[in-house]
């Protein structure tokens, strides 16, 4: 052993490494006015490609479409268009644009919308949400490559401040679509210069209430009020941070210590949900989101609609929302969540063990005899297993049938359900816009989101008629008819309707209440009058 004092070297190394590390990792930035947790890092905020809810929340703070939504009722309000007219036939919309500017000084013009929508419909761009533009005449054909002439699509800029849109069929929710992210404009100069990289924070050109000051991976997006926004005087926050906590316990810790001002349901750990719901800073609203089970109708055991109905009627959904989810979820007897303007779902079947048993007997399985064991399949999650266990037990008690639980990691689970490699699988569906079609269309024959093997020509026919119907009441009745058919013959068991829970101190903040689409319209968030008065 060479006589060499090693210890001093170790200590010296630490003495050097630690201050260097501290210097490297420390960044001095004042806290933003408002810190909100969007749960996971937005994948992109490019209106053409974004898909997730975190993406939407940030994009709607940075861009503004023709129309915006009321932060609570979600009713359409003027955005970049200060007024619009609808032709008698309900197929032609004329939007009149207000004078507004992009953050690079360019005026926001009708052609910016045309360019953005064309970009989404261009097949080679593979924009995930292109279908959201299909209500526009000719959009689907252009997107499917049946023509390369964009002139065939019903979008035309009359002049810089007029945009005319012609629809393929009456679309009562069209204004709501216009308020969504797919219909946002892009700045053509930034797009031409930087291509798809135009959306990177250093190149981004905004026309909404905020711009992106800084985006640190896995840390936060710093938003700053956009002085060029047409309504900047009414933007309540000078700065706001979107953070991405991912883990509910961490999110709640940050909220509870005042580091975060606003969290939603994803920031509330399931274990303490019932305690949080009882707090005065927890605000609840209905949510356009259904938790349901898909049934694979290609499996012989599940081919009989009576069996499928019996499986649904045998589940006491109230027990699930009262003992497991525990924060005011609504037991679901139908598929389309309540709260859509002008639409009422058919009642559907409630918990009815006697009828469930009778249906099973009718189908040839009295007391469950002769019925094969089926698999109840879900993605690995602390939420889904306890629900599956309750259902498993209830099926056994009520129908006398055996169900085995199987779980898989998310992507494997998705691949399995797409390949119809399951008997019964857990699912949820979030509506994109305020119309029943956003739920019912997925069970059309061959829809990629159907994933049950169920194909029913009559169901498709009713939906076609509903889509073409101009009278709102008749239209709603047709959708209700389709939904009733889905519930009676169909391949699903609705379990419950989600709720949105937003935690924030309403003595301090206003404009961030929960709503049906679980959106946060940052423009309207401001210190509440009480807080402003107290600070004077």
């Amino acid at each position, binding site marked *: 052993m060479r006589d060499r*004092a*090693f210890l001093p070297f170790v200590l010296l190394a630490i003495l050097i490494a630690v201050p260097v590390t501290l210097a490297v990792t420390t960044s001095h930035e004042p806290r933003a006015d408002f810190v909100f947790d969007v749960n996971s890092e937005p994948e992109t905020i490019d209106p053409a490609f974004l898909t997730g809810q975190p993406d939407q929340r940030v994009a709607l703070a940075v861009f503004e479409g023709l129309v915006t939504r009321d932060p609570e009722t979600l009713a359409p309000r003027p955005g970049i268009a200060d007024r619009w007219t609808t032709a008698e036939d309900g197929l032609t919309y004329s939007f009149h644009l207000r004078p507004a500017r992009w953050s690079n000084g360019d005026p926001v013009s009708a052609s910016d919308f045309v360019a953005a929508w064309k970009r989404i419909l261009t097949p080679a761009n593979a924009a995930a949400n292109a279908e959201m533009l299909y209500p526009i005449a000719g959009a689907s054909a252009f997107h499917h490559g049946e023509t390369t002439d964009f002139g065939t699509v019903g979008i035309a800029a009359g002049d810089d401040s007029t945009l005319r849109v012609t629809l393929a069929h009456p679309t009562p929710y069209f204004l709501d679509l216009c308020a969504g992210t797919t219909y946002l404009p892009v700045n053509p100069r930034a797009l031409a210069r930087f291509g798809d990289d135009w959306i990177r924070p250093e190149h981004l050109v905004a026309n909404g209430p905020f711009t992106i000051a800084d985006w640190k991976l*896995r840390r936060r997006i710093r938003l700053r009020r956009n002085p060029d926004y047409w309504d900047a005087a009414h933007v309540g926050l000078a700065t706001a941070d979107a953070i991405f906590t991912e883990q509910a316990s*961490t999110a709640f810790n940050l909220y509870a210590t005042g580091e975060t001002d606003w969290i939603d349901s994803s920031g509330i750990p399931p274990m303490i949900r019932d305690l949080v719901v009882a707090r005065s800073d927890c605000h609840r609203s209905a949510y356009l989101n259904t938790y349901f089970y898909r049934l694979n109708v290609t499996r012989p055991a599940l081919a009989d609609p009576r069996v499928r109905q019996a499986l649904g009627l045998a589940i006491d959904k109230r027990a699930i929302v009262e003992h497991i989810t525990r924060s005011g979820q609504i037991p679901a007897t139908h598929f389309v969540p309540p709260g859509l303007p002008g639409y009422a779902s058919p009642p559907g079947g409630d918990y009815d063990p006697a009828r469930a048993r009778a249906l099973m007997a009718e189908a040839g399985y009295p007391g469950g005899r002769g019925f094969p064991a089926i698999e109840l399949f879900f993605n690995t999650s602390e939420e889904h297993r306890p629900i599956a266990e309750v259902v498993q037990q209830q099926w056994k008690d009520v129908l006398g049938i055996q169900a085995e639980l199987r779980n898989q990691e998310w992507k*494997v689970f998705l691949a399995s359900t797409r390949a119809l490699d399951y008997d019964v699988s857990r699912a949820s569906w979030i509506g994109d816009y305020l119309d029943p079609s956003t739920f019912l269309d997925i069970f059309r024959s061959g829809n990629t989101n159907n994933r049950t093997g169920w194909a029913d020509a009559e169901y498709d026919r009713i939906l076609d008629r509903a889509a073409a119907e101009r009278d709102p009441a008749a239209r709603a009745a047709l959708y209700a008819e389709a939904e009733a058919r889905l519930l009676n013959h169909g391949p699903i068991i609705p379990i419950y309707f989600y709720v949105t829970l937003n935690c924030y101190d309403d003595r301090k903040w206003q404009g961030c209440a929960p709503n049906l689409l679980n959106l946060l319209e940052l423009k309207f968030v401001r210190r509440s009058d009480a807080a402003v008065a107290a600070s004077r």
Partner: protein
Amino acid sequence: MIGYALRRLLGLLPLLALVLFLAFVFMRTAPGGPFDAERSLSPQIEQALRARYHLDEPLLRQFGRYLGDLAHGDLGPSFRYRNRSVAEIIKETAPISLALGVMAIAFALVFGIAAGVVSAVRPRTGWDHLAMGAAMIGICIPNFVLGPILVLVFAFTLRLLPPAGWGSPAHLILPAITLGALRAASIARLVRGSLLETLGEDSIRTARAKGLSEPVVVFRHALKLAILPVVSYLGPAAAATLSGSVVVERLFLVPGLGTFFVQSALNRDYTVAMGTVLFYSTLLMLLNLAVDLAYRALDPRVELD
């Protein structure tokens, strides 16, 4: 020794290629793909996306394409974060994971050596039992339990430190302790054992006989010898600490690379997964090499090659 190091470095290249190939094969044989989501894409859009990222080509050609790009220093774009490149993700997050790792190891060394010395100098006393009891707890409690307990005590009860986040020295403390606790405990036990043994040796008796004060005996003479097992331990421990920060990063919202290491595989973000595998395997190989070189430097009896 320089020649040896260069030879070892060259030898790493085929090993890295093998690791990348295995990672590639495992990723691609796992069911599900980067574009799968609850809401399926229409077949047309999915086809266009696959073509855009060359996923429609034969697997071997894709791997060849990857290696070709890699040779030009291009790790590709992320599939999930479509406006980010893999290189950018690693560049922005790896220094944070490394910083956390350095702090965790520093914590482990300082507290581990201190606790070990206290125990060895006062064996079978209350101090010894306290230090070794703490070490035993440090070894037994997993970091996903220790982390929340520390948050409860320091963020909620004492209100001294932030519960999570990044951007100031205070943000580093709890994650570094959580990540370093296991190493600190192991080091404490190593130091205690080897220091007790050393203190019984003739050379130490001689030192004491010369009338040297106890601190000088312990720190100048005994600890110098007793620290060697810690050095051998430090290499693998540093590697494990640097690459094992996933749980701590998620718990404390530390924006490091560890989370990408795991999430990219779960998201089937193929390029990011390959990039993180490449980064961590290179790091581990270099650390192993550094340990071998350190042995040689400390103990000439060790033959390299």
